[in-house]
């Protein structure tokens, strides 16, 4: 009885938290929406002192940084997961998993400093850039940070494919490649998808590390696909400006709106993926 009560209260409380967070974000950013409508989302000028709160530069920057990170981390992570789950002997596999789990536990500011002192000079010298603080730097750093999530969860998903399926495939006489493409990956796909979603969430929400390497300038790259230019992300903007905004001001509301945008994107993504799972 007590156990049941405890379980349902915990469940209720955690779902209530989501509602509370959303309510808080919406309520705090409401003054801005009231005063400027909603068109500032596609505005490209962010000058708090002139009451211009265009969200587009940071939005584009966030999408770019996350996309780059996924583009790099997803193939690498899944490949490592396949290797670990199917090919490596148990000892090596344990070592690799352990190292990935360690990687996941490193605080993000450490990655940020690593990026500042190793990645930025490397980019500057190799690509001959004016400054290494670019969307590419943010993407690379984020890729490193989400790699463990993708790898560990994907490996679990691949290993969870039942032994009888593998044996059936072997009995049919199909090769290892075919088994990988036709049996293992399709079966593990829902798990890999969840891993990707979690990784996307982490990449989107990451603040400190990104702030240190992205350049933090509120300008859409020119042309927009040029990821070798400095840019801004929603989180880096919040991180840089939150301390100075006085509570209740429009600036404050605009920064919380950045948070609301992130939350909406995250929820949109997970709904999208959930619907696909149901459809499948």
């Amino acid at each position: 009885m007590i156990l049941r009560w405890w379980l349902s209260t915990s469940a209720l409380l955690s779902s209530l938290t989501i509602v509370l967070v959303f309510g808080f974000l919406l309520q705090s950013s409401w003054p801005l929406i009231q005063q400027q409508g909603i068109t500032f989302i596609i505005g490209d000028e962010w000058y708090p002192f002139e009451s211009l709160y265009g969200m587009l530069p940071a939005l584009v920057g966030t999408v770019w940084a996350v996309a780059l990170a996924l583009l790099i981390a997803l193939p690498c992570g899944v490949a490592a997961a396949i290797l670990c789950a199917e090919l490596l002997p148990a000892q090596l596999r344990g070592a690799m998993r352990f190292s990935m789990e360690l990687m996941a536990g490193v605080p993000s500011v450490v990655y940020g400093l690593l990026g500042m002192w190793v990645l930025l000079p490397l980019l500057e010298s190799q690509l001959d850039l004016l400054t290494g603080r670019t969307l590419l730097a943010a993407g690379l750093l984020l890729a490193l940070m989400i790699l463990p999530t993708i790898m560990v969860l994907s490996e679990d998903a691949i290993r969870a494919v039942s032994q009888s399926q593998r044996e059936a495939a072997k009995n049919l006489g199909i090769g290892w490649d075919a088994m990988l493409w036709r049996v293992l990956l399709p079966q593990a796909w829902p798990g890999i998808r969840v891993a990707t979603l979690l990784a996307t969430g982490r990449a989107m929400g990451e603040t400190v590390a990104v702030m240190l390497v992205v350049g933090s300038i509120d300008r859409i790259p020119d042309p927009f696909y040029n990821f070798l230019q400095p840019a801004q992300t929603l989180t880096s903007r919040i991180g840089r400006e939150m301390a100075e905004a006085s509570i209740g001001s429009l600036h404050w509301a605009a920064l919380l709106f950045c948070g609301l945008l992130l939350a909406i994107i995250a929820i949109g993504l997970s709904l999208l993926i959930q619907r696909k799972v149901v459809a499948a």
Partner: protein
Amino acid sequence: MFHRCNMGFWAGFLLLGVVLAGPFYAVATTIKIAGSTTLLPILSEAAKQYRITHPDLRLTVSGGGSGMAVANIERGTIDIGMASRPLSAGEAERLGSSTDVIPVARDAVAIAVSKAVYESGVTQLSLAQIAAIYRGEIRNWRELGGLDATILVIDKEASRGTRHVFASVVLGNSRARAPGATIITGSNNEEQSVISRSDQAIGMLSNAWLNDRVRAIAVGEGDAALLPTLENVALGRYVIKRDLNILVPKGSGVEVKEFVDFLRSDQGQAIVEMVGFHSVR
């Protein structure tokens, strides 16, 4: 209900809590100081020396920028704010009657360039040239007599005191836009590290952060160009200058007041000069 190991765990947990919380209960008063990273070395050193004579006082000093100091004094979350600029009109209206703005040091905002730029011959610029760089009208060092290299223009977060002073003198308005900027940095340390690692950067830095790889250039026309030396600041000749202030709420406790007096005393002002700024006397 609990296993033995669980009991041990909880006992350890409680013990750890007591050990960690202990020091906080033992000390009576804490003075929280935060704000401009320009003032940070002064207040850190002062706090360190002040602790020698006041061992039972806790002083915490952290950065964040002048804008952050104003916001937090307003929220009442810190005891002393550090502001490397005067209060804006709006801020003075909100805080003026309840807060004292006390200058503790004088400083120049240096126009800092990478060593390579300085050595290629760009050793002085007029205010108009600097403004043109930050407005995006001049984009290559060649146009200023240097090497053929794109200028890495470093701007600072809009709330930073250094930027206020720079923008009001060079761009004519403390909140002016800088469309020529390449990247934006926050603290003096962050900006210093960017300039020192680049071969083509220009930025605005407090005098105390200059070094061999981060050189100040003279500001002004022709022979009248001046370096931000302490002497030029003291005589009021260098134009991009400012008072470094602390913000102290009126009606602060006696511990805070005594610390403020210490900052303005001979000993306090000696610290100011030791870390590279000019005394207010």
